[in-house]
């Protein structure tokens, strides 16, 4: 049975109808290929540049279809809600965005995403296309999970997109882009916490439910279990726990320059995200980590889940420059 507390029509059409809305809202900058649900920058592949593309399940918006734009992704190819894009979608996207220098895709470490992309890559390579791959696995909360072997790829993904998108604009080669993505992945860590479940449009039931006073510590971006189901506590204490695990995993050391992201998982008011950022900024100051850039808002969501994730990225001069480069996304804020 359909979830009635959603602004959708037939749940089967959620993704195409969302994409149609997106291109209707951005007629000058985006194009949509309905057959494969590909969103790409207007005009398609740029023969002077190596395109950067991504595809994963829907329900994480603005990731990744709303990260398509100049200096960000050249294309995104979403699957259904919380389902990997199929092999032929990935292959079609590779073919479409391929240029003389090849094409690079970014994939989060989820089994379904990886299998379909790897397969598409092999197929494309058999056709003579040069394909680069960047795997993101920034989530420190669990080693193996419902949908992964190894760590999950979550909001840290944004920084790979931003850095690689900027590098592509500067004419980076396929190898340079892959190296850049791998550098981001080696230096980025994330972890999430939720205070509610989430409910895909086609499902009658939430993926999980939390009683009043419970939180899922280390939740995944589909509502998969994390480290533990714990009692809720003040926001500052939650942030302190998450911060210690994320910073400790890299590990960051005094004097490191960092980018800090407090990402909303969909149902958390932006006011609470800033309240959480306040504590993260204080913890950085105490630890001697210098915040060079910060990001507070929704970057990678899990439908309407009430939760947040913290992402820390260790910077070097090159990354700082790429993060500061101009970029365009289809979300208008003023």
């Amino acid at each position, binding site marked *: 049975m359909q979830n009635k507390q959603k602004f959708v029509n037939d749940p089967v059409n959620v993704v195409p109808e969302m994409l149609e809305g997106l291109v209707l809202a951005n007629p000058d900058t985006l194009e949509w290929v309905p057959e494969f649900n590909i969103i790409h920058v207007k005009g398609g592949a740029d023969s002077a540049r190596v395109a950067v593309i991504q595809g994963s399940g829907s329900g994480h918006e603005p990731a990744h279809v709303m990260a398509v734009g100049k200096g960000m992704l050249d294309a995104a190819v979403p699957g259904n809600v919380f389902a990997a894009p*199929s*092999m*032929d979608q990935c*292959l079609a996207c590779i073919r479409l965005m391929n240029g003389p220098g090849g094409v690079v895709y970014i994939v989060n470490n989820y*089994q*379904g995403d990886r*299998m*379909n992309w*790897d*397969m*598409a890559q*092999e*197929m494309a390579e*058999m056709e003579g296309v040069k394909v680069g791959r960047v795997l993101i696995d920034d989530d420190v909360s669990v080693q193996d999970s*419902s949908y992964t*072997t190894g760590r999950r790829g979550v909001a840290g993904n944004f920084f790979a997109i931003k850095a690689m998108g900027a590098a592509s604009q500067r004419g980076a080669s396929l190898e340079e882009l892959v190296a850049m993505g791998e550098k981001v992945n080696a230096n980025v860590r994330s972890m999430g916490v939720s205070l509610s479940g989430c409910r895909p449009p086609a499902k009658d039931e939430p993926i999980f439910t939390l009683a009043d006073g419970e939180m899922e510590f280390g939740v995944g971006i589909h509502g998969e279990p994390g480290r533990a189901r714990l009692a809720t506590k003040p926001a500052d204490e939650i942030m302190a726990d998450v911060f210690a695990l994320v910073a400790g995993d890299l590990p960051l050391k005094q004097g490191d320059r960092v980018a800090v992201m407090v990402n909303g998982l969909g149902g958390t008011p932006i006011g609470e995200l800033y309240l959480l950022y306040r504590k993260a900024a204080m913890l950085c100051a105490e630890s001697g980590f210098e915040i060079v850039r910060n990001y507070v808002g929704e970057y990678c969501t899990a439908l309407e889940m009430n939760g947040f994730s913290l992402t820390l990225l260790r910077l070097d001069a090159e990354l700082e420059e790429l993060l500061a480069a101009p970029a365009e996304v289809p979300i208008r804020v003023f």
Partner: protein
Amino acid sequence: MQTVTFEKVEKALVAIRDTALANEQYFCELDGVSGDGDFGTSLATGWREIAAKWDDLDRTSIGHLLLAHAQVIASKVGGCSGPIWGTAFMRAGMVARDKTSLSPEDIEVMFEKAIEGIKTRGGAEEGDKTLLDALAPMSRTFSATKAGDAVLHACLQTAEEAVESAMALQARRGRQSFTGERSIGSKDPGMVAIALMTRNIAIALSGHE
């Protein structure tokens, strides 16, 4: 075993196809015990597309015919099965790319490459209660018996025994693994499909052995 002709390969592919088409409901039921019940539909959807395109599939070589299968399977089969089966056909197809008949040694390598591909793609190992637990022992049986005439029969026996003995295992890959210990005691749908396809291949080719 003698050289396998193009005609025999086609017969084997028809047997695989028709097994997938005839057992949609049965495979779904098997998957429903501890998985999400879509395995039969996944396979049937792919092979319905293959059946529809049957006469137009690229027959330049055995390899091309297998690669044509791989393309459709990877595109049209959902769940874990699409990339896994697609990879198996693709890797086997690469070995046979320029061949219009297969030696026992060719088939041995195709077996090995397909298994290697499945492992790479899905990250599973033997013992994780997946179709690898049927394919890997079959591949060893094939290597050991490839000189003799009873090779197909020996492979079939290995597959069917594997289905039974793997019932005691706990699934560690795919949706079956989500239900944890509930998978213990039931047959793995992927392994059952492999065994049934082998049986139907043996029947189809028995006149020629």
